[in-house]
């Protein structure tokens, strides 16, 4: 009898808990209209960057392609000619294609790149009904000249690109600079950039 009464008590307790939850704050972020702030090192769609003078950073070395564990990148390099100079070096990428359906967004291409040309942006909304539309070629990967040079990952502000809509106010648990600089990759990139800057100054 006592056990049965205890069971009734348990049911009532359960009912009270669910009733309380009706008025609790819901953690749902209503995604398409409101977007969650991404982590500072979020890996999304790729981007090919430029130098400040508008020249492409990519030199067609295919290091990214060989670093890619998913074989998603195809690069076909070509020689720069004096009258048609696309990048500061000797070569440039005549074709640069990434199959985003194969890509696993690991960021190895970004690490392999000697000129910091390919970077992963936080953009993630790229679904499409056609498979072909997800093979991104250079015309969509390269930052358009009027949009600047593209941002390096470690200089990117925390959050999502402003053109993506309203951002949910989520408490950031990561200090962007501290967090990023503490990683090996952040250090490598910083050293690389410093080296490039030194090279540039020498020019």
């Amino acid at each position: 009898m006592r056990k049965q009464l205890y069971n009734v008590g348990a049911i009532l307790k359960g009912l009270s808990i669910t009733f309380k939850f009706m008025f609790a704050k819901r953690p749902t972020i209503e995604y398409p209209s409101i977007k969650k702030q991404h982590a500072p090192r979020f890996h999304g769609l790729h981007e090919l960057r430029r130098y400040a003078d508008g020249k492409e950073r990519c030199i067609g070395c295919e290091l990214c392609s060989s670093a890619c564990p998913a074989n998603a990148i195809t690069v076909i390099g070509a020689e720069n000619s004096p009258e048609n100079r696309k990048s500061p070096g000797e070569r440039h990428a005549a074709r640069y294609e990434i199959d985003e359906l194969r890509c696993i967004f690991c960021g190895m291409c970004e690490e392999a790149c000697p000129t910091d040309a390919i970077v992963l942006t936080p953009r993630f909304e790229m679904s499409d009904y056609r498979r072909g539309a997800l093979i991104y070629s250079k015309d969509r990967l390269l930052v358009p000249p009027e949009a600047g040079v593209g941002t390096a990952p470690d200089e990117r502000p925390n959050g999502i690109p402003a053109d993506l809509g309203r951002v949910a106010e989520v408490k950031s648990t990561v200090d962007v600079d501290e967090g990023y600089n503490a990683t090996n990759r952040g250090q490598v990139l910083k050293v690389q950039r410093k080296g490039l800057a030194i090279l540039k100054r020498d020019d």
Partner: protein
Amino acid sequence: MPDWIIILIKSAILLLVVVTTFAYSMLAERKVLGWMQLRPGPNRVGPWGLMQPAADAAKLILKEDLTPRTADPLIYRLAPFISLLTAFSVYAIIPFGASSAGTWAIGNVNAGILFLLAITSIGVYGITLGGWASGSKYPLLGSVRATAQMISYELGMSLSFIGVLILAGTTSLDGIVNAQAKWWFVVPQFIGFIVYIITAVAETNRVPFDLVEAETELVAGFHTEYSGLRFGLFFIAEYVNMLTVSCIASLLFLGGWNAPFGLDNLHVPGVIWFIIKVGFFMFFYMWLRATLPRFRYDRLMAFGWKFLLPLATLNLVVTAIIVAYMGH
């Protein structure tokens, strides 16, 4: 106007009201379940998701209507209509309120509560035949469970009514409500009320007694093979049955359209009180669904036969003895 035209108009209005209530109680259930599970619930279609029922209806109508090759075509098609017909025909006798002109009901049957039991006892055929006619194993298991569960719990339910009938001294729903002007029967018939609430949940195959559907074991139980509008008919029948048992609970135990706690001076129309009471029971259903896990099948049967039935009988005997010695 001849009588039959008036009845036709009344029926059309009532049908509209019941179907609308079904649509929005479905939305309300999804909302309440969402809130209790820390989700917002449907909110995409229209403001606060209020157009969701319309979207659901459009979806159900446009879906393909499948009939399995192993199914018995005639009975497979007939079953949802039996469910729907019995679910709706109960509203022919349920009174919603009263004014000086009379009771607000389509028909005032004197054997009201018995008529109600008779109609609801037919409702199980829709589920049983539908499950059998699907010609596949999960629906068959579901329908066999449904039959056993519904006839077992119907006994306890009927017995819980009889205590009320003894106190009211009449079988008409109108008379039962009027007999509660002073005391709601939930007070003298508290045990009957508890038994009724439990058996009503089981009769409508709702959580925690939804063994008929039991998606973890039986895919979707008796309506596994149904799709499109035919599934929709079962769905409507389930919610309309929920509404029915809520109405009966309000009429038999909570005083129907009588104002609670001596609030008669407020001059609120009785039908408002009735709607509030029915709404409370509907909410209670959703609340239970969000809280309790499903019964095990043998426990369900044992609970019905070894606990509820003796309890209801005891309640009946005690009530009968008290009424016999003390008068009404």
